């Protein structure tokens, strides 16, 4: 990247399974107010000049979902753009606004309440086309079931290992005051949980969650004025895979490998196994932690099972936040990963702090079975 962009402030709500007492507007204002106070800015010229929001029409059950929150993101009388995909894509968009020279200070605000719809599956079902895939009853969970079977066979990942991924997620989530699923579970508990979309068990699925995240991004000049500990976005990459599940190598990482390659090239990462201090993976389902680890180059393709067995997640500081398995809503899954990387690089990660962390990578995905992948490299 020619110029540098920093994240100067981050705020997240507590993630919970049903934040019935807060409207989405209230959720967003809670975090927007927080980041505004952190940097001491209002809305307007030389203040926060533009907003990027992240939300989904179906989760909010109203089209143009961002028009419900324009007031709380300062969008009255100035620009606002919405990203209806994982929030890691919204980071990409905010960075573009700054690198393009249009703005120096951008507010990013994302929200999702999975609890208000009759079920999360009914929302994700509508991501499928009405002629070929929706009629057979596909939704993200069903697509993940297909991917899990393909991936586990290709990489030798076992039911025991997936249970251990969940056990470890809960152990770290207990140290993350914002995490949703913090109750300890045992390997036996997870393995005794019923199958929902074989080989995915109920215990392998991220809990239905509500939450919101805000960030302040700024150009290098402004970042130095706004905070003492800017975290620099040094690499970004994304890539879409094809739509039909039968045409993808579900066990592989076609889109993630390309996204990671682009982000690493920009950041100058040549050996991800050795050069990343913190790794945050949006593991909606337990198997994805190992699959994404392969795609990010933490281990070789097909080595996810061996990587889990050898304690790869601990060795490479993967998901000390508890990961998405500990409960972030869709859209916020990748953005919460970016937020955790910022906290780690600012030394603000409390009991889960990786000492001396210098460089972190966050991954997010959008669509069924990780169709769109986004990778963000951050440094302090």
């Amino acid at each position, binding site marked *: 990247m020619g110029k540098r962009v920093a994240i100067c402030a981050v705020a997240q709500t507590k993630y919970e399974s049903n934040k019935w007492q807060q409207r989405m507007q209230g959720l967003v204002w809670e975090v927007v107010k927080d980041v505004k106070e952190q940097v001491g800015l209002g809305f307007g010229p030389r203040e926060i000049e533009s907003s990027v929001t992240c939300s989904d029409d179906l989760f909010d059950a109203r089209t143009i979902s961002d028009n419900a929150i324009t007031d709380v993101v300062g969008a009255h009388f100035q620009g606002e753009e919405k990203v209806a995909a994982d929030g890691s894509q919204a980071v990409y968009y905010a960075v573009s606004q700054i690198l393009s020279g249009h703005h120096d200070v951008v507010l990013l605000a994302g929200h999702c309440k999975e609890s208000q719809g009759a079920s999360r599956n009914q929302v994700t*079902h509508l991501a499928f086309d009405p*002629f*070929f895939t929706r*009629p*057979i009853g596909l939704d993200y969970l069903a697509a993940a079931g297909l991917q899990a079977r393909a991936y586990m066979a290709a990489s030798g990942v076992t039911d025991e290992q997936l249970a251990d991924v969940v056990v470890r997620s809960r152990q770290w989530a207990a140290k993350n005051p914002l995490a949703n699923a913090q109750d300890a579970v045992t390997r036996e508990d997870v393995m005794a949980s019923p199958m929902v979309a074989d080989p995915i068990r109920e215990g392998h699925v991220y809990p239905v969650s509500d939450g919101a995240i805000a960030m302040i991004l700024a150009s290098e000049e402004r970042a130095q004025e706004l905070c003492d500990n800017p975290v620099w976005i040094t690499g970004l990459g994304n890539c879409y895979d094809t739509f039909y599940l039968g045409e993808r190598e579900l066990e592989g990482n076609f889109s993630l490998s390309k996204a990671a390659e682009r982000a690493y090239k920009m950041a100058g990462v040549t050996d991800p196994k050795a050069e990343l201090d913190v790794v945050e993976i949006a593991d909606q389902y337990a198997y994805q932690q190992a699959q994404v680890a392969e795609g990010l180059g933490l281990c070789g393709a097909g080595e996810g099972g061996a990587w889990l067995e050898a304690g790869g997640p601990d060795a490479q500081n993967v998901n000390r936040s508890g990961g998405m398995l500990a409960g972030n809503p869709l859209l916020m899954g990748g953005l919460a990963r970016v937020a955790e990387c910022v906290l780690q690089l600012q030394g603000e990660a409390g009991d889960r702090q990786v000492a001396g962390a210098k460089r972190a990578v966050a991954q997010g995905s959008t669509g069924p079975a990780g169709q769109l992948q986004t990778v963000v490299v951050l440094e302090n």
Partner: protein
Amino acid sequence: MAHDNKYAYTIEGKMALPYQYFAGATSSKFIVALRDEKKILAVQGKQSGLTYVPPRQVCDRTFEHLEDNWVEVKDTGVVTNFTVIRYEEPYQPMKPPFVIALIKLDGADTPIAHLVSCDDVGDVAIGMRVKAVFAEEAVNTILEIQHFVAE
């Protein structure tokens, strides 16, 4: 959870929009052949060498046009992947537990996602040979094949 209406009045809503989805010329030809002739059509890429089901106008790998290069594939094939759906949702075409599989039809290169009907979901396995059962009444979607059964 009991909602305290001091903080959260709620109303029960429902998003519903009657909508006419267009299949387009290529998909329409496929669905009409399925419905009226019980034939499964595919398009072939000359450059990619791949036979695609469902069909599409343009190959997303080579960008070559495919819509004039039709072939017929068999109504039999092999299960290349599957999952057993054990949760219930109103949009599901079968009562759980049921099987959603990827099925590579004989003559096609791209597996298609579809249903496998069986007495016991435990009987379904990768490599299993299956055959299409066509719907008795027109539905104008991929459910013109109602489901697959063991061959």
